């Protein structure tokens, strides 16, 4: 991870849509009076969702004014957390987990697939501009390593061939089926339950 780069192409203006504005007002109410700056992370996420999965500077300024805090305070938060994107990402944004468990299970092979099919470098667009990828730290699905997150869905238990298929679908603007690619339900064992079989509640 290195310091996130802020995009040079910035829109002039950002405003919450009516729906998000009322949502934002509701979020602010979650915090005690005078502490509304605590809502900054939620609002940044809201802005990211509204603006094609990335946060422009205009949105940071907008949020700073909305919460009556300084620009730099919002900027600090936005650069601190890796889940805020500060430059445009593809319509399909692929995040490949390369932390130890996934790495042991072959995450870098998935990275190679991305390099081959999408773009040579991280955070660059594919030829058709609808897809970009990045390496990330642990996404908390170690039990089904290796895995990748595409937008808001997890794609788990991957192997190179399956992942190539997923990416090909994406490049054709077709959303592949999320979940385990070895037929598991959530994080349950592959076939039947192996332990605690007598316990009905387990």
């Amino acid at each position, binding site marked *: 991870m*290195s310091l*996130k780069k802020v995009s040079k192409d910035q829109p002039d203006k950002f405003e919450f849509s009516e729906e998000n504005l009322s949502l934002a007002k509701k979020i602010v109410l979650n915090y005690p009076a005078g502490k509304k700056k605590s809502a900054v992370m939620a609002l940044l996420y809201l802005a990211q969702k509204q603006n094609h999965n990335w946060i422009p500077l205009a949105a940071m300024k907008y949020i700073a004014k909305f919460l009556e*805090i*300084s620009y*730099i*305070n919002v900027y*600090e938060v936005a650069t601190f957390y890796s889940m805020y994107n500060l430059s445009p990402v593809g319509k399909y944004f692929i995040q490949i987990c390369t932390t130890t468990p996934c790495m042991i299970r072959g995450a870098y092979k998935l990275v190679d697939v991305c390099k081959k099919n999408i773009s040579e470098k991280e955070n660059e667009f594919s030829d058709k501009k609808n897809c970009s990828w990045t390496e990330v730290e642990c996404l908390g699905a170690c039990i089904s390593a290796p895995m990748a997150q595409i937008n808001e869905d997890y794609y788990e238990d991957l192997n190179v061939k399956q992942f190539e298929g997923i990416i090909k679908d994406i490049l054709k603007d077709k959303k592949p089926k999320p979940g385990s690619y070895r037929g598991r339900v959530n994080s349950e064992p592959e076939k039947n339950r192996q332990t605690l079989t007598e316990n009905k509640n387990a």
Partner: protein
Amino acid sequence: MLKVKINDIDIEVEEGLTVLQACEIAGAEIPRFCYHEKLSIAGNCRMCLVEIEKSKKPVASCAMPVADGMNIKTNTKLVEKARKGVMEFLLANHPLDCPVCDQGGECDLQDQSMFYGIDKSRFKENKRFVPEKYMGPLIKTQMTRCIHCTRCVRFATEVAGVPEIGAIGRGEDMQITTYLEKAMESELSANVIDLCPVGALTSKPYVFEARPWELKKTETVDVMDAVGSNIRVDTYGWEVKRILPKINEDINEEWISDKTRYACDGLKYQRLDVPYIKKENSFKKISWQDALQILKDKINVTKPEKIAGLTGDLTNMETLFACKELFHKVLKSKNLESREKNIYINLNDRKNYLFNSEIKGIEKSDLILLIGTNPRYEATMLNARIRKSFLKNNTEIFSLEDLGDLTYNYKVLSNTTEEVKKIIENNCDISNKIKKAKYPLVIFGESALTLNSSKYMFEGFKKFLNENNKITEEWNSLNILNTNASAVGSYDLDIVCKTNETLEKINKNFFEILFLIGQDNISINKKSEFVVYIGSHGDKGAEIADLVLPGAAFTEQNGYFTNLEGKLQMAFKASYPPGEAKEDWVIINEISKLIDGNGLFKDKNELLTAMNSHINSNKKNEFSNLFKEEYINEKILTLPIDYYHSNVIARSSKTMNECRNIRSKLKKTGTEG
């Protein structure tokens, strides 16, 4: 009081102190980077680790409150090992570039690594590189050296009131920067240079100029505004290399404004070093002897009432007094004036032109009313105190006029004399608030005192406050904010024309000889009068002069200044006047010697004795009759101050010019949006 043991010595300390402060009281020095008395506690450098009994791990003393019965040790093996460990981490990514670093010789990291550093690095990986950040024309950055103490961030948000510096990124990639690398929009910005414990933020104008041990240090006072900040002037030979703050808790605490700090390069440029005479519209060099002879001949053929003098904003009291004696005793003229504008002034009592609540007193005030003043530009350090009071007591602040950003919130009333009338006639909310407040502060600016109803407003307010017991021995809530360093000194020496018409007469070209003693701030429509300029810089005054006599700047002569609170302070000689220039009072003395044969004073001591007896003599003046007390409904407009160009030294300074250009550009494009 709490009983604690520090290094086996029993001491008693107040409640609410931190372990670090307690150790300091006990005389045990604790190394630190992020901790600073005037800033909030961050506790992130970990250099101040100490051992506390019953705590398994060493404790960061700056963030640990002291408790009863603590047994603190600062000199054990464990402490030393812990600090060495911290230092090793701090140095892991710190470049070894002390030989080319401006902080070298006065660097906290350098000093402390002498005690806690390890001779070689065990860090075999690549060192971190951080690109330089733009922080304006005053601050040079070398962010690879940064150890992330966040002192600058806390200073900007807390003291300066411009939350523009922050830490972006995380972990190894954390970087300190201004928002989108814009220049900091504060008049206190350069204080982060002093705060920075390493060489990450250094002074841009002073870059590679000198090493701290080569400089001669002189502790003196500042004359850029009437606050009289205490400063240290560092000189290398003749040249003033830099100006640093000197701690004075009553006046400037630990900070100084950017103008105080960086106008010093104005002492190098535009200097007058030999006497000049104007001939055929161009200046010709002449000798002192000839210059004074010309002046003498001119004075001999002129009637005393046709001679006038104006003293300037940076003139010290010795010179002012010498001028007064020259006009009074030798020239026999009554037309000596120190004011630049027709400011209402009541010299009957010293309290009528002072900042009576004192700068320190601002901290305890609970209500502040600004009348025709913009303290941010007129007295930056005083404004910082108002902000401190605002943060500490949540002081209610009112201004008659919308002044833009003052670094704190204030309520705007209406900027008319009618509003003031309402207040003093006890006719509105503010009057009640003032009555209820325990320590109210009413600050009159010079802009409010140039109006037709000045006397009505000032005397009315005095009456109102007196009636409500707000002017007592303990607390005097009526304040005047003078903007010139010499203002209070001039009033103390009552250099105010008794008939109050000198300025008017000058505009009407009544006089035949006009002395400008360091006066460069007023524009004079010159016709046939013979203008004599005595001063240090070639500026507005010298431009219209017929005879220029080169004087000394405030760093080049010993001289007293009285600040706006009425504190008498001495500006010490740090350098010497350039070329043939002389100290100002010497010039005045020589003029009088030439005219009446013997000088006013034998030496400086005689001058000082005479000045003291004059100040202390109980004098009665009838100045208050000079002004009509009348009420006109008019607007109170704070006259805009060209902050970076408010006096000759600042106008000659390249750094100040650059700051001014950047600020005006920011204004044009606007930082909003």
